[in-house]
């Protein structure tokens, strides 16, 4: 689906990323984890074609170099949910969600677009907010509006699509954190791919197929959760002691800190 080799990125003489290799297959849910400043968001931005670097030629999306795609075409194959969403948009919620359908219509939304945006709003539980002013919503609700927008953008006939999510769980309550992760998982079950920056290691262990643990711009460990999440690796990455055990009910890997 997407692969990149030797991805490096410098910002004002500081190395943010150093020679990172990633290869994410179709239907995979990859969680990027790591301490603050490890370069998680930078890696996501580069893969999502947000930063202009010479790396573009080294990143292959659907076997074509990112620099060979045009922006319009790309928008029907991949979408990105950003960490900092605009707080001031003087529009109704449904108009904000409908922006996700902009790649599909010229001036007026078609019936397909209405169906897709309603489906996405149902998915993130904002359908009942659709006639509200976006600016009147709480932080978590705004977050869910943008999640709906991003998911509606990839509701198309294309075989496999790719979604990037940068800390999608910020501001969300427990129920919506789980609902969102389930939404991502059902998205990947349909042969789509998700690359998600997460902070909660336990949720990453529970939902992700693959985990990429970063530290200071390099990959510390990359593989399935049970391989990456060992007490030794985590303590090394975060500089904080932890214990690994099994969840008493569902037997998932559980990480306890302190």
């Amino acid at each position, binding site marked *: 689906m997407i692969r990149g080799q030797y991805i490096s990125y410098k910002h004002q003489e500081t190395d943010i990323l150093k020679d990172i290799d990633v290869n994410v297959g179709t239907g995979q849910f990859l969680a990027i984890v790591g301490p603050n400043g490890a370069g998680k968001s930078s890696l996501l931005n580069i893969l*999502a074609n*947000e930063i202009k670097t010479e790396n573009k030629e080294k990143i292959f999306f659907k076997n074509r170099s990112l620099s060979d795609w045009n*922006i*319009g*075409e*790309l*928008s*029907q194959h*991949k*979408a*990105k949910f*950003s960490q*900092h*969403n*605009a707080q*001031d*948009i*003087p*529009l*109704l919620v449904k*108009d904000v969600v409908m*922006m*996700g359908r*902009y*790649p599909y219509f*010229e*001036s*007026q*939304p078609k019936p397909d677009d209405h169906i897709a945006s309603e489906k996405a709003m149902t998915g993130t539980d904002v359908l009942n907010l659709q006639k509200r*002013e976006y600016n009147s919503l709480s932080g978590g609700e705004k977050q869910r509006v943008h999640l709906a927008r991003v998911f509606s*953008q990839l509701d198309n006939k294309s075989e496999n699509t790719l979604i990037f999510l940068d800390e999608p769980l910020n501001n969300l309550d427990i129920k919506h954190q789980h609902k969102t992760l389930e939404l991502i998982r059902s998205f990947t079950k349909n042969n789509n791919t998700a690359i998600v920056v997460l902070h909660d290691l336990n949720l990453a262990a529970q939902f992700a197929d693959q985990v990429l643990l970063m530290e200071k711009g390099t990959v510390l460990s990359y593989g399935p959760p049970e391989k990456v999440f060992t007490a030794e690796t985590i303590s090394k990455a975060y500089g904080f002691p932890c214990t690994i055990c099994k969840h008493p009910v569902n037997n998932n890997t559980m990480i306890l800190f302190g």
Partner: protein
Amino acid sequence: MISKSQSLTFYIIVSLIFLLLMMFGALNIGVFDFGSSSSYQVFAKLLSGDPSLSTSERYIIWEIRTSRIVMAVLVGSMLAVSGTTLQGMFKNPLATGEAIGLTSGATLLAAIAIVLGHTFESYLPEIVRNSLVGISAFIGALLAMITVYRISTSAGKTNVVMMLLSGVAITSIGFSVTGFLIYISKDEQLRDLTFWNLGSLAGATWTKNIILSIVLLLSYIVILPKGKALNAMMLGEKDAEHLGINVEKLKKQIVIITALMVGTCVAFSGTIGFVGLIVPYILRFLFRSDYHFILPLSAIFGSILLLAADTISRTVVAPSELPIGILTSLIGGPIFIAILIKFKNTLR
């Protein structure tokens, strides 16, 4: 339920009918008295090519009144659309040609062309010489625009304070240079310069109207379909790009086209301030910030506003007339303050 596309068409048709009625009404308002026949009878005679029409009547109804009404419609429309587009690009309702110094930039170079133009005119090709003031106004607007954008925007985010302050700086440079030019200029040039500074549609001619129509047509073909793109800009430039919008190209188009529109309007009618602020402000009450609505509608409401203002300006102190810039600034100033108060908290 009326769908959104139908309601946009509905609003466009209703406001167009309203504009036509206003143009019709404005035809009958004016200082000249046609005696026994009404203005409409004279206009009908003109259309049917009636030989009984005297040259002076013909001149008044066609060369003065009709051409002035048409010019108000064209200039008003372009000023409003340029304001709306700028606000979309800067993502702020305070961005208008006056606030960010675009108008001053255009006025400044137009003034230089008027006063000093004769010194280098002979080196220029014929076509440039004839439209020297217009071209200078366009270049002035473009330079001001680029300067303000470079100063106030970094990494896709506009700093509102920087945007307004760089506008203040450009305006003050423009003010001092224009002041100096007024000081050194001859009598005839002085009259022209005063005309720029206050703004007036009294200089309307059909030649100007044809040029304005061409500029309007070219600009609208590019700009009016950008409603969706300007909406997406509210998400931030990067997110707009993820939605398939070529943000760099869009911004270049907006910079050039708004400079072209403002420059042409300033060249022909001087500084008519705040149309680009008032019209979107009113439309936002009705349609929020949905540019899909307010962009095409501002093209019509701009005409309505300027035509109304011009008709008032030529009747209120008849037989003399009030410079129209005084009127639009009188409405625009308080609205600017109203928006400022609303933004007080976010500006801090």
